């Protein structure tokens, strides 16, 4: 009996299962993108609230302690979100909307940074702004390895020092005029770099202590 039609049947079955797999994979990844979007919407609302508080300084007397506390809580939240987003971004293979979400978060974090500077000025807050500028688009193997090590170091510092530092990771090579202006203003020329309290730029450092001395 000639059963050569089975070659075609197998192809049809393969196409069905393969496409089903791709579809489920896309749905799975889209779910992650939606989750990031959810983070974003929540963070955006919180930040808007922060911005209103910051704007209200000129109009009414604001409770600085409450503003600082809200700022710290927001910083902690976006720090956790950033870690989760990074994981989803690394794991997504088909749906690359995570890159778009990443860029939105970068802008949100920039806004938060500016807000943080202002709250610090207005309320004389003691926390440190630690902005970590890194290369997002096609970093070399060496840059990637270095960035990963620095990222771990900063995470460790954040966990140790808690609310006394505002850790703000920012992709510096997405060509956003606002971020470019800030890079220029603070003379950040190399990536990765760490900007502490808008004064000290660290590019090459040999130990955790070198950062810690600016944070004590």
């Amino acid at each position, binding site marked *: *009996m000639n*059963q*050569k039609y*089975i*070659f075609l*049947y*197998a*192809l049809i*079955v*393969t196409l069905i*299962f*393969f496409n089903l*797999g*791709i579809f*489920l*994979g*896309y749905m*799975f*990844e889209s779910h992650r993108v939606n989750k990031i979007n959810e983070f974003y919407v929540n963070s955006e609302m919180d930040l808007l609230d922060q911005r209103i508080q910051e704007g209200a300084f000129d109009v009414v007397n604001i409770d600085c302690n409450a503003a600082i506390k809200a700022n710290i809580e927001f910083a902690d939240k976006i720090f956790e979100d950033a*870690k989760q987003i990074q*994981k*989803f971004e*690394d*794991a*997504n*293979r*088909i749906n*690359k909307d995570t890159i778009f979400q990443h860029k939105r978060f970068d802008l949100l974090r920039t806004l938060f940074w500016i807000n943080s500077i202002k709250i610090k000025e207005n309320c004389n807050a003691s926390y440190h702004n630690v902005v970590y500028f890194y290369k997002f688009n096609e970093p070399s*193997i*060496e840059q*990637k*390895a*270095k960035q*990963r*090590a*620095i990222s*771990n*170091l900063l*995470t*460790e510092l954040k966990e140790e020092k808690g609310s006394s530092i505002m850790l703000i990771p920012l992709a510096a090579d997405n060509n956003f005029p606002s971020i470019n202006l800030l890079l220029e203003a603070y003379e950040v020329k190399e990536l990765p770099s760490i900007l502490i309290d808008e004064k000290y730029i660290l590019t090459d*450092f*040999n*130990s*955790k*202590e070198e950062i810690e001395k600016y944070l004590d």
Partner: protein
Amino acid sequence: METLPIIYLGYMFVSIYFLSLFLILYYVNRKNLFEIPKLTKKYSVSILVPAYNEEKTIERTIKSIFSSDYYLKEIIVLNDGSVDSTGNIVKELMKDYPKLKLIDKKNSGKADSLNHGIAIAKGELIAVVDADSYPEKDAFSNLIGFFDDPLVGVATPFIVPRNDKTFFERLQTIEYNVIAFTRKLLGYVDAIYVTPGPLAIYRKSALEKIGGFDIKNMTEDIEATWHLTKEGYKRKMCLLSVATTTVPKKISPWYKQRRRWNLGGLQCISKYKKYFLKRGMLGFFILPFFVLQLFLGLLGLTIFFYLFITRSLSRYLFTRYSIQIGTPVITMDDIFITPSFLNYFGVILFILGTLFTILVLYIMKKGMLKKQNIFNILFYLLFYLTVYPFIMIASLYHYLNGTWRWR
């Protein structure tokens, strides 16, 4: 989408295709998988036993052949310049078996020995039996019915490893079972691409038409099968016809055997490349299948080395920086990885592959599953099979350099 995920998806597509093909073939033919072709006519059968230094096994091989329940016209041992006592053992046996003949010749290789045998064999059918293989009593009778179809050029049995005591031998037993099962299934679509050396029965006129075995080819059995396919002959297999063979006990002879198989395959690809996507099953399935195997193997290895080198370098640099700045080399985030959908896809395919292997072992022989524990099967799938592309690369290297020989 990046390049690597596209390549992974390509591999997955091919894997799903072949898994589907075999499962559909099995489902359609599950009731006649162990069918034996009916014997309606009597054929005269000559047996050719090429032998080179086979003093340890030749006697048992000959005795196994003579224990056959099918009438055999003659058994011709082609002593290919053995320097041990193979010839003397055969001469002794000739006293008890008058149908046994011995041809002593200078060493010229298996294919050339077989061609000598074909020239003097008197049977309508010619069975080739390796001197270290033992056909079971009904091995010939269960195959001969296939030849009632005048288009059948060759029939092949289920080759079972005789030695399956050690872990390494058991891995090969799994492999032989999977090969036999898939070969049987491919037979239903006229896609059998090799009739292995331990035992194959050929129609003499078909062998004469293709000019015998190719003496330049390292795997004369693969070449003959491809040639017969090209000439329009069918290849058949019976799972209830069994011949046992000794599989390599150590890595080194195993590697040499596999390299020879690959080299033979490469020679065949080169010889028949002009029929690619032409001439029935040879051009439309067998050649593309071999080329695809070669391509996927090479691509897979290239990716493997690329990833291995870049990740090792990345890990080294990361460790160096981490130590330099005094931060942990491993964090909890490294342990709890976030899987991609490709990881899930891969795991599902691996589970399906494992289930398929278990199904094969279950179907092929009662008790096989008891002998093979799940660890053997997983090791076979995870490690044993992944060595194939490395052997392929080595074979390709030898092939391109011309640094290969039979023994």
